């Protein structure tokens, strides 16, 4: 289902049978090997998701998603076969396929040559390639950077069980 590019060495006991069973935890530690290797999670072309998609790692969607997508601290790429009917909130959004919904990005929204977006954009930076389709309004307002609480030296970083969860 999730088209990871490698086989994990050991399975987490929290690994779900299906990520679609309620709010499911797929991975606990965002500083995973996958991120260190510069790889991203991929939702393949044959996958269809209805509901809320949230996560803490970069994601490429080449399938169909209807609902909401929240990747506030990570990049989202809508692949050439991606077909999204959802509001998107991510750090950086790249659209190569089709999106119908409002897109909010902390950094950049990029619509590539084959990309199509019907919806409103809120982002400090917008890149639209020749040949791209866009219909909607644009707000380029910079949001003030959130103040992050620094963890105490001896304090271990908290686990983030909401890493990649899908709410039906």
């Amino acid at each position, binding site marked *: 289902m999730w088209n990871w590019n490698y086989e994990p060495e050991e399975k987490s006991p929290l690994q779900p049978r299906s990520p679609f069973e309620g709010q499911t935890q797929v991975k606990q530690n965002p500083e995973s090997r996958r991120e260190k290797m510069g790889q991203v999670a991929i939702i393949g072309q044959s996958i269809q998701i209805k509901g809320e998609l949230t996560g803490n790692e970069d994601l490429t969607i080449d399938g169909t998603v209807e609902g909401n997508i929240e990747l506030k601290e990570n990049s989202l790429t809508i692949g050439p076969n991606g077909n999204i009917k959802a509001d998107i909130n991510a750090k950086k959004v790249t659209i190569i396929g089709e999106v119908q919904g409002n897109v909010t990005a902390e950094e950049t929204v990029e619509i590539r040559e084959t990309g199509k977006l019907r919806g409103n954009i809120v982002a400090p930076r917008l890149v*639209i390639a020749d040949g791209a389709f866009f*219909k909607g*309004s644009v707000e380029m307002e910079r949001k003030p950077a959130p103040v992050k609480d620094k963890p105490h030296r001896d304090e271990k970083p908290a686990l983030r069980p909401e890493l990649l969860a899908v709410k039906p």
Partner: protein
Amino acid sequence: MLIPGLHLSTSRAGTLRDSPNPIREADGGRVHPSNNLTRLLQMLSGIPKPHVLDLGRLSSPNIEWLIQKGFKVYVDDRITSLKPIPTPPLPPKSEKKKPAPAPLEPLEYNPALFDAVFCWDIFDYLVAKQAQELIAGIAKVLKPKGLLLAFFNCNRSSSPPPVRYRILGAAQLEYEPLVLHPMPRRMYENREIQELFAGFDTVNSCFLKNQMREVLVQRQAG
């Protein structure tokens, strides 16, 4: 020929002595002054965060430029989304009929939302019925006294290639030629332009050196 009520300006923008931005020959004639853009921006200057709708070809530099000037920008590219008129099989000589143009997608915005609409040269690519539909839609979404900027090709000898209008400054546009499949382009007579904007008052209309007519009209208040 001047038509009463249309207030066509006889000044050619490229030859204006006091024009702050004369045509830059170094750009291969791609950069032109635009008095009507200047006028439009001046007329909107007193409005806090004016809402503008760009119906021309998508241009992210234009979006950024307008946003930097304090506008809220809506983009709805009407040319790229135009469906080509299908070519039917050849009819018998007695039944020659022109194929009906595809109806335009309606402008789905709240009434009286926009302070200005940029049409650039899209009317050149529409048949009369489509142009009337579009102008009726624009009249609904424009605020009373809202502005509409449109360009028309007036070159009888040749049809200029499709271009994208890029705002370089408050008084300057770049006509960026596009490598596209050729699109049939019609030429409007002054009378047709006047009829097209029947529900509008003409603010300014001028004939440019590059054989384009720039028209700035304002929706009537009533």
